[in-house]
């Protein structure tokens, strides 16, 4: 399976703290994406980083990509209770149309 893996599986932090979650994958990629899922809902795209990029920012989100280690990290700064959700990475290979989603990190931000 080409499915990625997120680490940790679950994370609980206080509001205002930073949250970091990691994603490891197995194959060469065109790009890597992070998604968020609120409980019982569909996934929402957060940010996309191309294979030739090393870091990307979007608001309170910071994503890094290390293709030599086949890993990525998502940092959420100054977390809020509304950030409570599951976060998934998805890798897109160089060929084909398929996305490979990880198993997700469940983030709980305590007010």
């Amino acid at each position, binding site marked *: *399976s080409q*499915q990625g893996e997120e680490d940790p599986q679950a994370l609980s932090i206080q509001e205002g703290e930073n949250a970091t979650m990691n994603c490891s994958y197995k194959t060469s990629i*065109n*790009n890597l*994406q992070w*998604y968020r899922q609120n409980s*019982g*809902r*569909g*996934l*929402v*795209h957060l940010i*996309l980083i*191309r294979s030739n990029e090393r870091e990307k920012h979007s608001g309170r989100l910071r994503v890094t990509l290390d293709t030599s280690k086949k890993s990525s990290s998502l940092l959420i700064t100054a977390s809020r209770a509304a950030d409570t959700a599951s976060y*998934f990475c*998805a890798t*897109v290979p160089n060929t*084909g*149309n*398929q*996305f490979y*989603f*990880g*198993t*997700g990190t469940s983030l709980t931000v305590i007010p």
Partner: protein
Amino acid sequence: DVKVTQSSRYLVKRTGEKVFLECVQDMDHENMFWYRQDPGLGLRLIYFSYDVKMKEKGDIPEGYSVSREKKERFSLILESASTNQTSMYLCASSLPGYLPYEQYFGPGTRLTVT
């Protein structure tokens, strides 16, 4: 805004029934996908379609079939529902994969097979 809609949020069916899950997108996307999501297993691809009447098997196609007669609509069919198909089903769409586009997801259908 892209909108992906799914026919039902919650569905309860009996073992052996034929089940249709419908997905419609309004952004003229070429690609459409069906996933199932189970605790601890993440999202697993069942089937995807890259054009009308075209389909490809994903990682777990057994027990499922799909239909794409129109570009905006992608249906997932459970020919004879079984209890191990109880799951959350997510539909998604995207532009062609040769460009780095994201997927847009529907709200999901939670299917229970009794």
